């Protein structure tokens, strides 16, 4: 079971569904999850919204055999760090056979269930990645 509150998930919903992040027009750096302030340019930074196309590369990964509560039915599954084409890195579940995973593998985004608050609560949807 995901213990995240409904409002907390809802606030990040657009970013999770459509990989919407931000970028700094001053230094041309991209951020996901979105940042409101550029850590490099600070007050000189100009932040704008950016929708990532989601294509990227698997930087590293691990195979989960002993899952957290709510994910028991999915083992073994892969958690990885994906670097998007524009630069930012994010942690995501990588859908597929753990034996097929390799560092440097090209990935593309898919829309999947991320979890749910038990049988009665909200279902949380968002982006995961599959081998491209």
């Amino acid at each position, binding site marked *: 079971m995901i213990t995240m509150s409904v409002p907390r998930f809802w606030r990040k*919903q*657009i970013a999770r*569904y*459509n990989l919407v992040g931000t970028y700094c027009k001053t230094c041309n750096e991209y951020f996901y999850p979105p940042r409101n302030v550029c850590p490099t340019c600070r007050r000189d930074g100009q932040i704008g919204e950016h929708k990532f196309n989601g294509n990227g590369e698997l930087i590293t990964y691990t195979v989960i055999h002993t899952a957290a509560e709510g994910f*028991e*039915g*999915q083992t073994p599954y892969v958690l990885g760090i994906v670097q998007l084409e524009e630069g930012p890195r994010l942690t995501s*579940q990588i*859908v597929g056979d753990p034996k097929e995973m390799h560092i440097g593998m090209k990935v593309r985004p*898919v*829309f*999947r*269930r*991320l979890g749910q608050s038990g049988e009665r609560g909200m*279902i949380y*949807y968002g982006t*995961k990645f599959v081998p491209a």
Partner: protein
Amino acid sequence: MSVGIVSYGAYIPRYRIKLDDIAKVWGDDAEILKSGLMVFEKSFPDVDEDTATIAVEAARSAVRRAGIDAQRIGAVYTGSESHPYAVKPTSTIVAEAVGATPVLTAADFEFACKAGTAAVQTCMGLVASGMIDLGMAIGSDVAQGAPGDALEYTAAAGGVAFIIGSKESEITAIIEDTYSFTTDTPDFWRREGMPYPEHGGRFTGEPGYFKHVTNAARGLMEKMNTKPEDYDFAVFHQPNGKFPSRAASMLGFSKEQIKPGLVVPRLGNTYSGSCMMGIAATLDQAKPGDRIFATAFGSGAGADAFSITVTDRIEEIRNSAPKVEELLANPIYADYAKYARHKGKIKLA
């Protein structure tokens, strides 16, 4: 003014189970089932896929295929008998995920296997009246069949989205006309809170499928003064391979006409996606000027017939999103244990 399909997109999960593997578990004769149903394997969802995720993937393909600005979509209707929520529309999730929110109307439809085509008809009306610019109609299901029930051999997962519009330069397939035939027939139902549907045995064939499909199909051809020879292709709801083949021959359509759209032997019955999947598979192969006759059936019961003409635009957009044949290729075969786990048939303590 013409109304038609501006774009279409399909999605099929990669997992398949062979009927032999299901029959083995229940002690049934696989050969009899396969020859009776004309279905050999069926798709099932990944552990994190459901009707909403399938609808989103199909909808995104439809948007991508024709390069649609999603903000133009004024309605999203998702038809399914397996919506993830009893109350909370799948269509809101789809609309958000394709970037069509917030100025649009949305609702979920339910009419067994024809909820998707009911959504198509609704979008046709809204577009033709000028109420909206583009409408999105989706049929998506992770169909349910109780363990050991006859439905378990065919109930599959998949979805298709059509974007309906009226700008002539954008239309890929003109929907010339539609005709529906509906009665209160107790052939299939699922009560609130129940995990699996029930079927009313003897109502399934003649009084259900064949009566409604043939009446809707004949009604449309009479209304339009057309005959089976006027069409290059035909698609009939495909709960199995046998029913659409028999309906086609009862109406005077040939095996060749239904061949491109008959995907059920390798896919199973994707319920609300079934007839629309057949139309999508046919559009994947059709040439400009080809005419397609399609009839969807939903238990309960009703049938929606459509007469469609493909335009030159098909050649421009066809290759911009995965075709049904590509989605059927490279399946991951799994045994009944994995299927049961993915479908939530094994309850964890």
